């Protein structure tokens, strides 16, 4: 235990300047993305999406349709990539796994008493194991925000480490729920804890709390990933989730990713968008690039 602590200097928190980080984030939005850069960015965006449905009312039919759409985004436009993954509740994992078949699309499952995380560690671990046994390739866990805000960082760390162990070969995404952490300093601290505890990805939000992902918050998390890489050479992925529904905004996120972490991160192995409606907006933009005119949203399937 002592050895592990020695390599994790949580005692020296990284400070974030609110004004500075927001200015930097807005600077990315000044980049003008045109022509082939735009086209490539849009295709890359599609390929980075975790197509998500996380409703109490999710039906088997809805999950099946979503999985079909994940592989066939818009067949009228040939050559489109698939999305990166579908993201569902544990009870839908087996069905999703069957539906995506051998398309290469991953199945991600939320776990650990999503979205609030208000349960015991034993139940969270059991849920994680259940999702993995059902076939989940990726687990999206939530941190215990209550414990974090209390200052019980060791609990949060240990919980993430335990869930990571329960994941086995599945990749672990750790949701910080930044909307409940409020300050950038806390977002940074939670990012550092999650990364050190073994997260393969850090993720902003559940999508159930507002505000969800914002560019400055994502920037703070990307900087945490970069500092970890500087120290250890290990890459960690990033997933902003919630609130990214327009292509233009997605392109701004990609500009930010490219300028903070560089091209090694510019693929769905290391970056994801958690979104349900972004795909159709990107498809509309792609169709516009192809035909020169915007089409009605009724020409794009809603699943």
């Amino acid at each position, binding site marked *: 235990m002592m050895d592990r602590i020695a390599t994790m200097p949580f005692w020296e928190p990284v400070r974030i300047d609110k004004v500075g980080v927001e200015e930097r984030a807005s600077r990315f939005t*000044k980049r003008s993305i045109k022509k082939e850069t735009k086209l490539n960015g849009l295709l890359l965006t599609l390929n980075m999406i975790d197509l998500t449905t996380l409703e109490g009312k999710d039906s088997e039919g809805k999950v099946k349709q979503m999985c079909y759409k994940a592989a066939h985004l818009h067949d009228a436009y040939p050559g489109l990539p698939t999305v990166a993954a579908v993201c569902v509740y544990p009870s839908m994992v087996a069905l999703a796994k069957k539906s995506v078949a051998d398309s290469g699309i991953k199945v991600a499952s939320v776990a650990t008493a999503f979205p609030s995380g208000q349960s015991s560690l034993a139940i969270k671990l059991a849920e994680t194991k259940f999702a993995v046994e059902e076939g989940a390739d990726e687990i999206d866990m939530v941190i215990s925000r209550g414990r974090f805000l209390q200052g019980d960082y060791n609990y949060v760390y240990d919980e993430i480490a335990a869930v990571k162990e329960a994941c086995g070969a599945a990749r672990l995404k750790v949701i910080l729920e930044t909307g409940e952490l409020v300050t950038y300093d806390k977002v940074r601290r939670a990012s550092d804890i999650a990364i050190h505890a073994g997260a393969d990805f850090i993720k902003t939000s559940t999508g159930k709390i507002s505000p969800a992902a914002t560019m400055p918050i994502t920037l703070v998390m990307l900087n945490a990933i970069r500092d970890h890489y500087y120290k250890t*050479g290990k890459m960690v992925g990033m997933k902003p989730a919630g609130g990214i529904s327009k292509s233009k905004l997605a392109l701004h996120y990609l500009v930010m990713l490219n300028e903070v972490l560089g*091209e090694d991160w510019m693929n769905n192995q290391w970056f994801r968008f958690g979104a349900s409606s972004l795909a159709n907006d990107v498809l509309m933009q792609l169709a516009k690039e192809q035909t020169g005119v915007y089409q009605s949203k009724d020409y794009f399937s809603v699943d």
Partner: protein
Amino acid sequence: MSKSKSNTLKLKFDSARKLAPALENTSAAKINTQYNLFINGKFEKPLSKKYFDTINPATEAKLSEVALANAADVDKAVKAARTAYEKVWGKMPGKERAKYIFRIARMIQERAREFAIIETLDGGKPIRESRDFDVPTAANHFFYYAGWADKLEYAFPNRKVKPLGVAGQIIPWNFPLLMAAWKIAPALATGNTVVLKPAENTPLTALKLAEIMQEAELPPGVVNILTGAGQTGAAIVNHPDINKIAFTGSTEVGKLIQQSIAGTGKKATLELGGKAANIIFDDAPLDEAVEGVINGIFFNQGHVCCAGSRLYVQESVYEQVIQKLKDRLETLIVGNPLDKNTDIGAINSKEQLDTIHNYLKIGEREGAEMYQSKAPLPSKGFYCRPTIFTNVAQSNRIAQEEIFGPVLAVLSFRTDDEAIEKANNSPYGLSAGVWTDKGSKIFNMTSKLRSGVVWANTFNQFDPVSPFGGYKESGYGREGGLHGLGGYVEVG
């Protein structure tokens, strides 16, 4: 961190610089093939009968030719300004003067796009900066001082103020329109009339501003704009009927001006060179500090008198800061200033580029380690890669002299006192920056740094409300804010 490991830890940014071109459409900018002198409300042919070319430093192509004012032209302009001062402007109630100044401000806003494009074409600065900084800030200056015109009695309570008369104003090439605004706005608000000379390399936006003065129906002679070179400036400085000289430019010329006006009774404000220190403490928000340092030195290709050209980093975070700086450097896009994605545009002139290159050689000879980004440069035009020197000594010329280009000298320090001592150890004292999370440290530093402006956890922020000016060889007098009025009035 071991040496071999840091090699494998390089982040790759090649694709960050390869964005498809996003060029600003220049059709909104109308540039005549020839410009005359703006005297007494009209564009008049120069008595010198001479013209000179102004070029686009990004392509070296000629943009236009402008008149060269000689001493006779200066005399004509000063006479017009004197008449306007005595007959109209000096007597006009502040409330009425304000209306004209407000009108000028609004017209700059209306033609913002045109101004931004011409500023970029003529000076080489990125369109993002002329669009988002130069033009809006220039308009703000006019708005701000328009507000003061009828409230001077509140600016100087219980005192009687009166204008000085005719102000001769000489401005540099780094912020052509903005400097014109800094000079003209407070002069007009306080009831003075103006003879202004823009820099030889960048006269076009001042001439466009002259067009606005005409359209705004500003009384003839209140603002006169004379294009020309050093001799034109000397003729303004030496003209006996000028009451005040306002100059922004090099310390060398500033000293000459001071010598020329000694004993003449002319008032002066001089805003000269700088070699600002940016100080990063180990408790600073480092990523934001690095971003501030980048903007502090690479803003406007480093052609900024208050550029943060010396960086002092506390020892314990030195390596980390250098690594972050270098990575950020790789994502800066150097190229066509008209491209909306360009971060660093063209160096303003061939001479300036030669000066910068000379300093790069000096730095290497002095034993400093030079790091330049791998950004590709356009084949034509004057460009310089953003450059960082590490392993710099306080005694090195690159740490002492103003380079006026995208070149940063990085030094380290151990204690707060050492940082203060080193930062103050400069003939200049225009600006400084402090980066720390600790409020008390900010106050300690700012009270001990001998600089006209000290920014805390930010850099290069300009607001018409806040005064700007230097200590020591950075000049005297303040521009902007309430203090900026003081340079243009006699307080009785």
